[in-house]
């Protein structure tokens, strides 16, 4: 890998959050499941749809529920020629602010109509899905109101909606940056190369481009020993979502010989109950080297006497 090639890696953050709706939003979603659209009335008599839990004008609780729609007026719109994967409709459509009949506020939804028929002020009607689950997408979309409504397919569910899942997925491309990329090129040669601060002369490993203590750029590259000392550690015995290693495993602070910052890594090839502070260890490399510190599979004990606590005290 040349110095001019940027080192990047994909990174995906994905989780299905579990939302509780509270009473107001829960009732709105329950009504959608049952094929009705409801708004809420404020103390001043305004009808808000979609409902909110609290009157935005006064901060007070909202009052009773009012059925609105299913006809609505388009207040404004924008045309989507090429729908994206997560759009509610997979043919060209309009995102529109639609104000349901009987409501004083508008909501964002999809309108399916020929582009040439789209107009501000046009009348549309909600089209419900046959299978409804208690979601805003139980309204499949709005269409031009012809005065005729489709028969609603009844829904057998009766339990009120109180929660829903909100899946999220974020895809990143993480750039290592110059300092880490340089370090990881060393890893591909089975080298651990730290960087020394010109001011305090301390060595950072993994390297830092600048010294957080002195605020100056680190300049000197320092190839490090691959032996070190466990300054402190924990044995991870708890399983958890997304865990990569099988518990129990020892996560340790390893201070490489001559270094000044401990490296957080795994201690392996040893019964976790035998791991101790002051234990001498060495890096064990993976057969297949990748530009990641995980190419050091773990640190394993070596046959050297433990380092006394007094000598590592300043590093934990």
């Amino acid at each position, binding site marked *: 890998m040349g110095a001019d090639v940027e080192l990047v890696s994909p990174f995906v953050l994905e989780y299905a959050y579990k*939302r*509780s709706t509270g009473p107001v939003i829960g009732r709105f979603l329950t009504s959608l499941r049952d094929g009705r659209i409801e708004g809420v009335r404020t103390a001043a008599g305004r009808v808000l749809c979609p409902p909110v*839990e609290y009157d935005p004008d006064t901060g007070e609780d909202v009052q009773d529920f009012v059925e609105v729609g299913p006809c609505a007026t388009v207040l404004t719109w924008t045309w989507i020629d090429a729908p994206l994967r997560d759009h509610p409709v997979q043919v060209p459509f309009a995102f529109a602010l639609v104000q349901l009949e009987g409501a004083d506020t508008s909501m964002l939804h999809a309108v399916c109509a020929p582009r040439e028929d789209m107009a501000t002020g046009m009348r549309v009607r909600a089209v419900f899905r046959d299978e409804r689950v208690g979601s805003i997408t139980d309204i499949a979309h709005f269409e031009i109101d012809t005065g005729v409504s489709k028969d609603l397919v009844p829904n057998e569910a009766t339990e009120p909606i109180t929660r829903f899942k909100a899946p999220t997925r974020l895809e990143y491309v993480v750039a290592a940056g110059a300092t880490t990329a340089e370090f990881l090129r060393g890893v591909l040669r089975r080298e651990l190369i730290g960087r020394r601060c010109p001011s305090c002369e301390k060595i*950072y490993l993994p390297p830092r481009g600048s010294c957080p203590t002195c605020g100056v750029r680190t300049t000197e590259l320092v190839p490090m020993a691959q032996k070190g000392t466990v300054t*402190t550690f924990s044995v991870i015995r708890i399983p*958890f979502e997304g865990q*990569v290693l099988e518990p129990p495993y020892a996560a340790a602070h390893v201070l490489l010989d001559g270094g000044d910052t401990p490296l957080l890594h795994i201690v392996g090839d040893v019964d976790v109950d035998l791991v101790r502070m002051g234990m001498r260890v060495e890096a064990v490399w993976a057969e297949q080297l990748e530009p990641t*510190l995980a190419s050091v599979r773990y640190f394993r004990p070596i046959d050297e006497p433990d380092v006394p606590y007094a000598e590592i005290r300043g590093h934990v």
Partner: protein
Amino acid sequence: MNERCAVIGIGQTQYAAKRGDVSMPGLVREAAKRALEDAGLTWADIDAVVLGKAPDMFEGVVQPELFMAGALGAVGKSMIRVHTAGSVGGSTAVVASHLVSSGVHKRVLTVAYEKQSESNAMWALSQRFPFNPPVMAGAGGYFAPIIRAYMARTDAPDHIGLKVAVKDRQNAALNPLAHLQMPDITEEMVRASPMLWDPVRYLETCPSSDGACAMIFSSDGSEVDNPAWVLSTAMRSEPMLFPGRDEVNPRAGADCATSAYKDAGITPDQLDCAEIYVPFSWYEPMWLENLHLFESGWKAIDAGHTHLGGKLPINMSGGVLSSNPIGASGMIRFAEAARQVRGTADKHQVDGAKLAMGHAYGGGSQFFSMWIVGQERP
């Protein structure tokens, strides 16, 4: 600062593993309404709102302050969000108090929350980022080696962690809002609980909670008969990694405490009680030393000095070990300190408390926030 700042209203939700009956806005509103009731005020009396919570990944809602403006009566008012990881509840209160003490606003509402049941904090804190070995194992995995280093440094006996775990849950039994209610807990039960992040056992750790805490600050305190006066606030931070960093006794925490005592014009031995951020029982002895409260934290605990009725009661409410809505946990410490000097802490009240301290920390012991509150108008 030109003006004074008084705590005139405090509101907390019930803390629980899951508040499935309310939305996130509903949760913060519950705490805020209780604070308004406590202060005898309405939404219209509030000039600005300051919201705090821990990382957005905990619930997957970015910019929650916009999401919650309606629930907090903040439409048309100044509203900001503060974020300093686990210490955020404390720093949110500090920022909000400065809006009053600087003379910018007369009355400010501050709220902090977490709804941990909507996600999984272990997952959120254990992401395997590119280029790194798969070592992360949540907050416990991060702090357990530091706890081990404290034990080695001070020769603290193993039962200190058990004692704190028992003491805080016994205190929680006096606080009906506390999440964990284990009045019959014993050191043996704690010792027998599973080892999660050796040397930290299950019952030596905090729960995952839903909950919110709110306070109302005023510049003259005249709204109520028993305001708590903010005598000083302090915040400090330090980088997560630098050579020679002392994670057992972080400089930022020690400096934060020195500043808080100096600005309040007191010495730590004048405090009647303190609520400090202890998510793992061993952090009580560590912070007792870091905050200059006792020379040996573990010996003070062993002697019973931090129990209710002891020399310096710590975490009378049950602490983070008994209720942990992460973003709110720091503010609960601050609010519980204020309850003590207002004389409204009910069954966990320290008799005659006049001076109390609230403390929070966050990140990898990187962010610290504190305040000292008193009964006497400064």
